[in-house]
């Protein structure tokens, strides 16, 4: 393992201080916690609180700021934060209109956030939650933990965050999320695994010439391994999966997010984005919202994910384009 760190057990703590050093005008740390708080919370508006294991930077803390998240709770690497930390985030973020928790669909995250929600209810803070499950590599059935929450989560942060800023109530935001989340789908490909600092070893092994489709952002196994191919063919495979999931037709309107998983350079992300753009153009899909970059990473995993959101309502595009002041958006 070759990493620019000090002690593996200190990575989350020291990362948080460094992140805040870079954006001191926007964010602060709640003392004694791993919670990052927006310094300019909007009085009387619903506060959006997200979080989860660390290792996905700039998610989640990089999206704290006016127009997106009120607070983010950082767990240990790839480990959900505990309820007491989430509760602290809820208490400090609440501006009198309630708190909406954004949870990615993992067993640990769901349980910890739900417990925090129950504790907050005892303190008479109005709290509800939404669960993001955009990874179509996983079958959603009663026999699995269901689809995972991956890169599409940042689009949820943006849309719901902007909608909260515009003054929607907790109930309205929850109803909005119920429409938005099923309209977001993501599929990824990995070329190599990320290495958790405390374990020191890559999460899984791929041969030099191999890639794996459908790998999760913690290295969860994907749906197929094969020899590495040109970007255009990878774009075809991922677009095929999304076409099957969306069943789109010519003229449909989507937003696109090409997301690097940590170790894949922007050059490769741009090349891949160009290939996807051509494929979608040939199918006459409109793409009024576009974003390319490393937003939901998996430590130093090489690979990328492709997210599409079907823009079923004009407001969604407005909220995606609304101003937000955060470290990473």
């Amino acid at each position: 393992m070759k990493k620019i760190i000090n002690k593996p057990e200190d990575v989350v703590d020291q990362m948080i201080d460094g992140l805040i050093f870079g954006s001191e005008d926007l964010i602060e740390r709640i003392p004694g916690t791993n919670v990052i708080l927006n310094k300019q919370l909007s009085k009387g508006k619903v506060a959006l609180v997200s979080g989860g294991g660390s290792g996905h930077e700039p998610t989640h803390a990089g999206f704290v700021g006016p127009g997106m998240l009120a607070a983010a709770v950082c767990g240990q690497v790839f480990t959900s934060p505990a309820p007491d930390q989430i509760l602290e985030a809820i208490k400090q973020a609440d501006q009198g209109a309630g708190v909406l928790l954004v949870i990615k669909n993992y067993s640990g995250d769901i349980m910890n956030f739900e417990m925090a929600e129950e504790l907050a209810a005892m303190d008479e803070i109005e709290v509800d939650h939404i669960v993001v499950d955009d990874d179509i590599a996983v079958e959603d059935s009663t026999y699995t933990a269901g689809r995972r929450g991956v890169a599409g989560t940042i689009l949820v942060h943006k849309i719901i965050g902007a909608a909260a800023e515009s003054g929607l109530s907790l109930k309205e935001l929850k109803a909005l999320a119920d429409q938005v989340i099923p309209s977001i789908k993501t599929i990824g490909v990995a070329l190599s695994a990320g290495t958790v600092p405390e374990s020191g070893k890559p999460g899984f092994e791929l041969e030099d010439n191999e890639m794996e489709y459908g790998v999760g952002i913690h290295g969860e196994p994907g749906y197929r391994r094969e020899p590495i191919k040109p970007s255009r063919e990878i774009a075809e495979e991922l677009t095929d999966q999304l076409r099957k999931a969306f069943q789109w037709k010519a003229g449909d309107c989507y937003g696109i997010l090409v997301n690097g998983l940590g170790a894949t350079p922007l050059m490769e992300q741009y090349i891949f984005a160009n290939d996807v753009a051509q494929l979608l153009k040939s199918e006459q899909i409109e793409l009024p919202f576009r974003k390319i970059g490393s937003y939901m990473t998996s430590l130093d995993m090489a690979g990328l994910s492709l997210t599409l959101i079907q823009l079923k309502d004009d407001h969604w595009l407005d909220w995606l384009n609304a101003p937000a002041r955060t470290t990473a958006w």
Partner: protein
Amino acid sequence: MLTVESTIKWLNLFSEKVEKNKDYLSELDQAIGDGDHGANMARGVAAMNEALSNKSFDSIQDVLKTAAMALLSKIGGASGPLYGSALIAMAKQAGEDRSDLASIIQAGSDGIQKRGKAEPGDKTMVDVWVPVVNALKNNKLSADIIKKAVQDTEPLKAKKGRASYLGDRSIGHIDPGSMSSGYLFETLIEGDTL
């Protein structure tokens, strides 16, 4: 029978056992999870031991609640809320009926199922808690019964938690959460708490 002293002794023995076997727990977790169950449990029981040694207790409920909060805030992941919920439910039950160990463990088992929504056979710690409760009700809890319950998770296919993403590939491995729950009940016997 549970008393303040025997409950503390039991939880201390559990801590020792987790600490001693943390590498094995992580090894089990590497096969079907993300490989940190041992490290997470060791962090949790260390915090629990500290919390239990820093305070005097006048009820079993108090002991269990203190232990629950330490585990809840320090284990993290999925195991934190599961063990935390179990011990909170056990504390509540102990407040009502402290003499009946079976009903206390039953409450813990129910707390886990309510939090994690797993059923027996899903390859989770529920597969150890449920048979242990049944054995306790019949005054038949033994090391063999615990060992068998843990071992019986090996051929199961995971339907909950991170291991469920592996589908059939989760078959043939012992569930790490079942193993750590096995330690909890083994130390119940070893501490002469029954």
